[in-house]
């Protein structure tokens, strides 16, 4: 057993930390404040090859691994959770299922452009009446010659409006329930496809979150991802990978709040000494640091299993559950340590607290993660 990053992973960590610190951090407050999608950061990330980290080189990726990808989401989220989720949704939710379930033709068509960042990706499963109960899909896909005609809508879709490619779950046969769900790759310029309402959110305010609308949207049969009726399986598998991405985001947010709090409590003086000198601060911070490290080990271990080709579904749920709840606890306490200043936008911890909350909700709520973990436990 070896807990050390490889030399390659260490070199990657050096790069992504520097990139996050110099290119991403300076924009974080403004991106949050103005609810602006950071296009310029996305362009810089594309240039470095960050949009195809673990995609093999023959499909235009960098040929790295899932641990590097997880570290990228972590380090970006440490300074800006918006930037972290843009990468996570693109990689885990759009590119990954195409790589895993796509035909050779689909891979050749989509992966090089997604991996280079020329195209951004998104994923649509959630609907107004299909949240945790993903099998209640109402977006219908009806066969029509060489096409399927899609009608319905998706909500809360990350990267919506900015993405060029969408992986969409639809219902092709309602009577079959889960087994009647089929996935399609939908190009943004497909007639009948449009972007609906943009959400105004508590956190990750720079990320684009919108409704997707399908009105007689004709998608060629050749864009079916996987087989007819395989959509639910693909969605669940995709979310397993996505959970490691979101766990990495939560871990990054927690680490960012720790960094800020260590710095602040050393500087802030009350009763004639730094508040970091008080045992109340020290004990609470020691507990939080322990939780952050535990979360990191869970995240790394899940990503490692993914790289090793081992089953990781429950591991992904555990790391996501623990990292998300740790992020919420750390950021809430970080605001408390900062006192009144922490409640203002002068310091980044209030943003981190708002950003942390979503990690307990999307890509499966904490309750869903507990269901997944328990299902494995009591099978």
């Amino acid at each position, binding site marked *: 057993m070896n807990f050390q990053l490889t030399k390659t992973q260490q070199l990657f960590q*050096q790069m992504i930390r520097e990139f996050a610190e110099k290119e991403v951090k300076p924009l974080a407050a403004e991106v949050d404040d103005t609810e602006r999608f950071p296009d310029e950061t996305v362009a810089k990330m594309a240039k*470095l*090859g960050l949009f195809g980290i673990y995609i093999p080189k023959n499909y235009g990726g960098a040929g790295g691994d899932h641990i590097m990808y997880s570290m990228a989401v972590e380090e970006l989220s440490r300074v800006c959770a918006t930037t972290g989720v843009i990468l996570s949704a693109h990689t885990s939710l759009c590119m990954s299922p195409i790589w895993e379930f796509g035909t050779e033709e689909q891979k050749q068509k989509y992966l090089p452009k997604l991996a280079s960042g020329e195209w951004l990706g998104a994923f649509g499963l959630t609907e107004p009446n299909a949240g945790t109960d993903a099998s209640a899909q109402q977006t219908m896909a009806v066969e029509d010659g060489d096409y399927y005609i899609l009608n319905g809508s998706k909500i809360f879709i990350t990267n919506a409006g900015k993405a060029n490619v969408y992986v969409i779950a639809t219902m092709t046969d309602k009577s079959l329930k889960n087994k009647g769900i089929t996935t399609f790759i939908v190009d943004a310029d497909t007639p009948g496809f449009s972007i609906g309402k943009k959400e105004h959110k508590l956190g990750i305010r720079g990320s684009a979150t919108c409704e997707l609308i399908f009105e007689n949207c004709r998608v060629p049969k050749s864009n079916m991802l996987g087989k007819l009726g395989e959509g639910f399986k693909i969605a669940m598998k995709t979310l397993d990978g996505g959970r490691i991405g979101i766990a990495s985001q939560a871990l990054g947010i927690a680490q960012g709040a720790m960094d800020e709090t260590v710095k602040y409590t050393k500087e802030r003086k009350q009763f004639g000494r730094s508040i970091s000198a008080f045992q109340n601060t020290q004990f609470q911070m020691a507990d939080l640091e322990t939780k952050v490290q535990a979360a990191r080990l869970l995240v790394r271990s899940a990503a490692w299993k993914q790289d090793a080709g081992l089953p990781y579904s429950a591991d992904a749920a555990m790391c996501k559950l623990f990292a998300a709840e740790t992020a919420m606890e750390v950021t809430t306490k970080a605001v408390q340590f900062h006192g009144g200043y922490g409640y203002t936008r002068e310091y980044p911890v209030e943003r981190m607290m708002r950003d942390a909350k979503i990690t307990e909700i999307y890509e499966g709520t904490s309750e869903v993660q507990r269901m997944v973990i328990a299902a494995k436990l009591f099978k």
Partner: protein
Amino acid sequence: MKIVVCIKQVPDTTEIKINPVTGTLIRDGVPSIMNPDDKGGLELALELKDKYGAHVTVITMGPPQAELILREAYAMGADRAILLTSRAFGGADTLATSHTIAAALKNLEYDLIITGRQAIDGDTAQVGPQIAEHLGLPQVSYVAGFDVKDGKYIVKKETEDGYQMLEVSSPALMTVLASGYKARYMNVAGIVDAYDREIDIWGDDKVDLPAEKLGLKGSPTRVNKAFTKGIKAAGEVHEVDPEQAVNLIVSKLKEKFII
């Protein structure tokens, strides 16, 4: 166009302290980085690669762990990396270092040699110019801009009060400022490949010099004393309106004969 960039691994001096007893740098726990001016120099070389298809070789003299900055150079886009390492090179001052590097460079073909202006550990700015002297090359120091025109190098040299534009014949040596070239980040595919690529390890057999020119023996410099600079007295704070502030600043500058 063949370019050789000389780079150095240095302790990150923003985090360094000096041992008050021995007067030497405390290197324990201090991260090692590619010297910033050298990184600027590598950026210039890589821009010339992007523009003209230049071949970029990086070379560093140092202990085996200096390999790290060569891997970094590969991940940024360098084509070849050489580690110049031998116990015989240990303890070298700028003179012995420049003799050694110049002798090693004689094994290579080049149209342009690039070094950083100075390293943040020693801050001498001597090694680049000394290499040029040993090799009998024209040199420009403090380079902040560079291009190629009709086989000549058009160089923008930073001076204390502005810039000088120079035309230089090839081959030549430039010492580059980090401020002139914002270094690119390592790219992900380059990082993935960096540890699979070959690094040429050159020992003293690649350096055709008598033993007394190498390492400590070849170093006439003796450090008399090293110490941490005392902290300056606290400044004055005046809370006044902008007009008064200008007058105050001007009178202070006059008082110190700065203007």
